């Protein structure tokens, strides 16, 4: 018999649909108990269009090829002591933030997509989520392996997962991931696949992966490019799920808009940490945070939402504020890290003269006016031996958990932005209208937040003094503080045959 030819689409459909069935010994609502409570109405799961038609055999084949190449490069990087070819050892602060802040989010994404991979009622959607679940596991594991060699030669990389559960600034990404994980499956996928991976992913990818390339970090660059084809599948899924939900029922629109508003702001606040990394930790920077924001959010994001306008979707609430903050964000975040640099797991440092000039050029309206004097002052204090780290712990925003450092950028950039609200007799503080809105929509959720500073005051973090808390964080004495006083710096100088400590690092 002559076999009928099947096109890719039909073939894929036969290999993924109709394998599942309508259960009858147990109610479908008991088999899939979680996909209705959020109020999203799905009338026909079969309308789901598979965004990438990968059967398992093809998946194993492609992914195994990528893995072989990646590990070959990681191995040779380690063998050849590739870390000595970095632009500068101060660049490692970015990698330290990455493995403690981002890698745990990869595992969180793995966990969440496994949950959806089991609990979405539609077969096609389940398979798509499972593929992403295993991809995200890949990302967590390959990042651990890529950074393993750095951990052998630099400080601050030794206990990323333990620290992710405890350290004050790491509760920013952790609480973001757990916000999504604790939500229902449709909100989870809107948050991670759409708000994070579709709308904002380049703002994470460019600074870390192009940043790695600009700074001689072959290991991370290779990982990044290896993950890129996974990410493009994830982005496609993000767009597909939004369209699918919107096309299924008109009642879904306001719910989805609310989630986009919320998770855009939530994810954007996580990226505030990335902005500081991009503008300050990178020795050589591919582009400034502001430039990246303008291209990837204002332009590309704007076009995307214009396109989605036909579904009735609008730009996320408070996006104008995020754009207005772009000229301040990285400077404010890096300032607080420098001021608390005795309590960070990476090294802080004032920008080199060259870097300050670069910042002036990239931020003509703000850097010289507001931020340069601050860094020059600290630099001078360090030379005079009068510099002191902040003695008090900062107040954290109840939602994003970043210290209250953001300012009224639209009216008076020197004025701290401070919002609060009362819930059941208690007062809660927020860094912005965005975070306050999120709280007010779901106060029962956000009162539960494990706020690191509150926890320290309540005695849950190893003790009442900074050294006790740092010990509880498993920060070793050489992990934090100024780069130029660090073991990383001394070893770097040794490797390169310089015994004179340089005055300012980042230029070389």
């Amino acid at each position, binding site marked *: *018999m002559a*076999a*009928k*030819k099947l096109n890719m689409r039909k073939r894929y459909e*036969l290999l993924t649909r*109709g*394998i599942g*069935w309508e259960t*009858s*010994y*147990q109610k479908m609502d008991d*088999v899939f108990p979680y996909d209705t*409570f959020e109020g999203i109405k799905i009338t026909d799961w079969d309308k789901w269009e598979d965004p990438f038609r990968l*059967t*398992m*055999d093809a998946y*194993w084949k492609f*992914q*195994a*090829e990528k*893995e072989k190449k990646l*590990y070959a490069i990681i191995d040779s990087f380690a063998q050849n*002591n590739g870390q000595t070819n970095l632009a500068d050892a101060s660049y490692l602060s970015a990698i330290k933030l990455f493995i403690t802040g981002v890698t745990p989010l990869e*595992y*969180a994404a*793995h*966990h969440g997509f*496994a*949950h959806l991979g089991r609990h979405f009622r539609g077969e096609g959607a389940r398979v798509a989520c*499972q593929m992403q*679940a*295993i991809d995200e*596991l890949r990302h*967590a*594991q*390959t990042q*651990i*392996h890529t950074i*393993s060699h750095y*951990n*052998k030669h630099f*400080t601050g990389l030794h206990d*990323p*997962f*333990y620290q*992710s559960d405890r350290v004050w600034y790491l*509760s920013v990404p*952790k*609480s973001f991931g*757990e*916000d999504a994980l*604790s*939500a*229902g499956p449709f909100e989870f996928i809107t948050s991670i696949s759409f708000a994070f991976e579709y709308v904002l992913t380049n703002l994470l990818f460019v600074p870390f992966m192009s940043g790695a390339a600009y700074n001689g970090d072959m290991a991370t660059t290779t990982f990044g490019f290896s993950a890129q084809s996974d990410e493009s599948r994830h982005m496609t899924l993000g767009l597909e799920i939004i369209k699918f939900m919107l096309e299924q029922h008109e009642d879904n629109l306001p719910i989805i808009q609310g989630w986009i508003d919320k998770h855009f702001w939530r994810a954007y606040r996580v990226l505030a940490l990335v902005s500081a990394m991009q503008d300050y930790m990178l020795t050589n920077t591919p582009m400034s945070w502001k430039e990246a924001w303008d291209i990837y959010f204002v332009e590309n994001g704007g076009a995307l939402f214009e396109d989605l306008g036909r579904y009735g979707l609008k730009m996320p609430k408070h996006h104008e504020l995020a754009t207005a903050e772009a000229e301040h964000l990285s400077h404010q975040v890096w300032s607080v890290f420098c001021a608390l640099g005795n309590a960070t797991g990476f090294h802080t440092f004032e920008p080199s003269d060259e870097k300050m000039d670069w910042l002036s050029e990239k931020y003509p309206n703000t850097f010289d006016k507001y931020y340069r004097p601050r860094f020059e002052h600290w630099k001078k204090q360090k030379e005079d031996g009068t510099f002191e780290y902040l003695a008090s712990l900062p107040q954290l925003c109840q939602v994003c958990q970043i210290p209250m450092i953001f300012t009224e950028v639209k009216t008076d950039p020197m004025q701290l932005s401070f919002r609060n609200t009362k819930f059941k007799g208690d007062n809660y503080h927020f860094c912005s209208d965005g975070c306050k809105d999120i709280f007010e929509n779901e106060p029962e*959720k956000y009162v539960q937040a*494990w706020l690191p500073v509150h*926890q320290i005051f309540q005695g849950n973090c190893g003790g009442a003094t900074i050294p006790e808390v740092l010990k509880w964080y*498993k920060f070793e004495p050489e992990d934090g503080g100024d780069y130029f006083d660090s073991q990383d710096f001394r070893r770097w100088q040794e*490797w*390169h045959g310089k015994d004179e400590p340089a005055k300012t690092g980042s230029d070389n």
Partner: protein
Amino acid sequence: MSIEISAKSITPIRLSYGNLIERFGDKRPPSRYQEAAYDVQPTANFHYRPLWDKNHEIYDTSRTAIVMEDWYSFADPRQYYYGTYTIARSKQQEVAEHNYAFVDKRDLLEELPDDIKQSVRDILIPLRHIEWGANMNNCQIDCMGYGSTICSVAMFNAMDRLGMAQYITRIGLLLDGNETTTLDAAKKDWMEGPQWQGLRHAVEDMFVLEDWFELMVAQNFVLDGLLFPLFWDRFERKLSKNGGGTIAMLTEFMPQWYSETVRWTNALAKVTAAESKENKELLSTWLNKWVSRLCEAIEPVAVEAFGPEGTSELAEVKEELLARLGKQGLTI
């Protein structure tokens, strides 16, 4: 910068990540498997209770009655992390791809005796729904389970089951020249055929089990422990003896996969049972429940597959399973 520094001249400041030094000491560097699998899952200071399960934290040891002092006592003997896993499977799929192409090109299924074809349609093709159920169940173990060593293996297992469901589907399509007659008939059998209802009922009951470790026992220890030897080994051999050797070319993946996979279920059974008397008792209770339930459910299919010997074939497979699990410390 072009400074040549030989590998030997740089002394590392530490051997590995802190959690691995704590677990395995600092005598020699941990393996890539250990780096990837251990302690990655969050364990403390969760921010928000799940809206979909307010009685538990996002990761919560109390989603099973099994109690482990250290959920990382278990190690996968295959040492699978994503890289080793995908590379192993890609080799297997390469062989499978070759075999499918060969059978397809020469129309080898066409030449099979009709009764063999019918046996494949009646017995093997409906098993794709069981693999699909196993995919769901292993996803459930991953997302409700505890500890990244266990959960990551469940993820790999889930994807394997999807892969096998797809291989079985391809056999169905090959049998019909890409028409879905066989697949449709097998689905109808699965949904309505009296011989399959015990199994479908059991699988659907597994979908709603609350304890993920009980699900592990039901699906990965017992159901797989009965089905794979019975159908993907003994029944295959019966087909081959009767002129259906071609089928074995298309299903080579399954027995291979199974003999590899029992290594981790054995290891998991052993570690969990050895932990405490209570665990051991609990595992025995579950084992008892699911062995008798599933043997009963499989029997009509076994009889359809083997004729009257089906009962004794199943009984032998059951004895082998109990003997194997007995060696791991699990008894009925």
